[in-house]
């Protein structure tokens, strides 16, 4: 009897656990289903539909045309797409490098123990991130206005002639990069500063006791321990830079010529100006593949961390 009771006592919790697991699984399924359905509806369905469109000839004015396989992708493999890809690459590399150098320097400065009013500086430095890109772009468009803007006026005070800025093929991309750096550096700064604050102080103290100077501590202690944070920050910024659109739209419309036309703006132009939805979808998919590849790298780094 005892053994039977024991056995029952032993089995009952087991059965109960199994029942719990079943009901837990059931509840998981019930609670997850609406989310999955909504995600399928708002993410997967449009994505699949746009892939479907990218395989068709579809000019809005004429309506949807026939299935053309990879025809839209093949059409893109020309000088034009190469040009916008090159601009996107120049823009991405420039903004990521410039913004990282500025953000990392500022983060190191903010992390100094002797610095007073740190929070105040942090709030000020975060302000560009809090502004909408469109407002920032309009503000800079006015400031860089060749005839009425304050920048040319300031330059004129020291005898420098008026520059065309967004209207000068040699300066337009550099001016866009400047505006982008002003806007987006804050995000990198916050991430890097948070990383620095979370680093253990013991290795730094140990290095200091061993006689390392500030540069040696930065190079041999801070940078290696901060490496994963730096990589994540760089990748996130690279992904957003690859998709640059809003600043370009307001500041230059991709011009002069195509000197500031990015892949995203090219996709917009194909879709909304040429009304060629098939080709616009194809460009978007190529960009998506690049972004997904970078995201996979990011996820791998996060896993390794």
């Amino acid at each position, binding site marked *: 009897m005892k053994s039977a009771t024991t056995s029952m006592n032993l089995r009952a919790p087991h059965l109960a656990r199994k029942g719990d697991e079943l009901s837990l699984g059931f509840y998981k399924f019930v609670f997850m289903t609406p989310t999955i359905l909504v995600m399928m509806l708002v993410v997967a369905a449009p994505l699949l539909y746009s892939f479907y469109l990218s395989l068709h000839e579809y*000019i*809005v*004015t*004429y*309506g949807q045309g026939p299935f053309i396989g990879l025809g839209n992708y093949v059409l893109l493999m020309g000088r034009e797409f190469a040009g916008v890809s090159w601009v996107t690459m120049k823009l991405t590399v420039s903004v990521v490098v410039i913004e990282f150098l500025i953000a990392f320097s500022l983060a190191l400065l903010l992390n100094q123990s002797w610095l007073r009013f740190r929070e105040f500086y942090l709030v000020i430095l975060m302000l560009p991130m809090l502004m909408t890109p469109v407002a920032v772009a309009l503000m800079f468009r006015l400031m860089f*206005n*060749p*005839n*009425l803007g304050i920048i*040319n006026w300031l330059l004129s005070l020291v005898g420098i*002639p*008026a*520059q*065309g*800025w*967004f*209207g*000068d*093929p040699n300066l*337009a991309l550099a001016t866009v990069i400047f505006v982008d750096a002003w806007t987006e550096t804050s995000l990198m700064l916050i991430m890097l500063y948070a990383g620095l604050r979370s680093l253990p102080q013991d290795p730094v103290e140990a290095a200091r006791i061993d006689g390392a100077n500030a540069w040696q501590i930065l190079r041999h202690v801070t940078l290696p321990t901060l490496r994963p944070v730096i990589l994540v920050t760089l990748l996130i910024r690279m992904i957003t830079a690859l998709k640059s659109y809003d600043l370009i739209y307001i500041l*230059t*419309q*991709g*011009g*002069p*010529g*195509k*000197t500031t036309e990015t892949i995203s703006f090219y996709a917009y*132009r194909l879709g*909304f*100006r*040429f*009304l060629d939805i098939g080709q616009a979808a194809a460009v978007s998919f190529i960009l998506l593949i690049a972004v997904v590849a970078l995201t996979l790298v990011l996820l791998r780094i996060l896993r390794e961390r």
Partner: protein
Amino acid sequence: MSRFYKASLLATVACVLGATSAFANPAEVCKDVTLNMLLETVPDTVALQKVAPEFEALSGAKVNIEAVNYSLMHEKLVPSLTASSGAYDVLVVDSYWVGEFVTAKWIQPLDERIAKDGVDTSVYFPALMDINGKIKGTTYMLPFWQYAMGLLYRKDIVEAPEFQAAYKTEFGRDWRLPETLEEYAELAKWAGKFTGKAGAAMSGQRADPVVMEATNYVFSLGADFYNREDWVPTLNSPEGIKAVTVYADLINNAAQPGALGANFDDVANALKQDKAVFAITYLFLMPTLQDPKESLVVDKIGFARMPGEDSLLGAWGWAVPSNASNPDCSWEFIKWVESKDIALKRGIAGGQPTQTWIYENADFIKAWPAMAAVGDALAHAKGLPVMSRATQLVEVFAEVMGDVLANGTDPATAITNAEDKLAALTRGDPLLK
């Protein structure tokens, strides 16, 4: 009752009935309706906003005007027009969107409504009805406002004796407004150097600004984008290449700094701030140039027609979208806004009328003397081809101009490179058959 009185009475009754049918109780179809419309931020929109409350009082409808920058309009309209029920109840359609909107069946034919309500379309400039009214024999729009383009110039500068004396020394003739494009180019370059200002305020921004401006150069030299009979691209002609060459020369040697990033607002600002002598641009800028609150050149700007053969003619037209929720009320609004007294009011408030008789109206000409030259400008102007993909023609020509202006590509090469794209735009177009 004598026959005369009977006839008078009948005529009066007929007039009253006619007037009643012309404004067939807007209140019956518009009561509590909200009419949404998308317009560009231009003087005509301001003029419309001034009179719109009259329609609200007459009909009981609410007129909701959304005014945005031109570059936003097409991309806001297209998604709305492709939906089963649209966001806009009354459309204003730019002349080079017309073919696209008609082919895609986004706007309703108006002939039945026009016939039923006895709307007189003969009051409009025929050239405007051709580009913003009738397409292949069917009326889809009533012209709302025209954007005639031509030469704006600083009267005070060119009429100054020292300017005219220097002009005579430079060119060996008495002062005259330029008669050809080449003459204009030489004058603008010289005037810039002589005055220390920009010889020409120009708008080289992609896509619409540069195309609207440079097309004047193309038409001025007698070139065109297509042969309008067989729709073969014709821009690659000596005249077409020369037009692009002259434009590039002026951008490099006469325009204000940053002209490659400038739109027509920047052109207006350069003129208003006394920074330019000439501009080939829109006459509709005149009200802002005459506004003492923002302009240093009030009463100093003159208008002449484009030197050479033709200028670019553009206009906006009123249309009822196919997916309008209350098309009867939309039509009542269009009918009202184009009625004679409202059209005149809009003109006096700074609009650019499309009805011929307004340009002979004393009150209008007194308010806007420069408008007296519009008739001449319209007589020497033509629109972009009415084709289903005219919007894309603008993009392709903008690519040509960008290639020349930003990359320094030779105009002949840039135009040759675009020929396939130009040819593809007309292929299979039902409007061109």
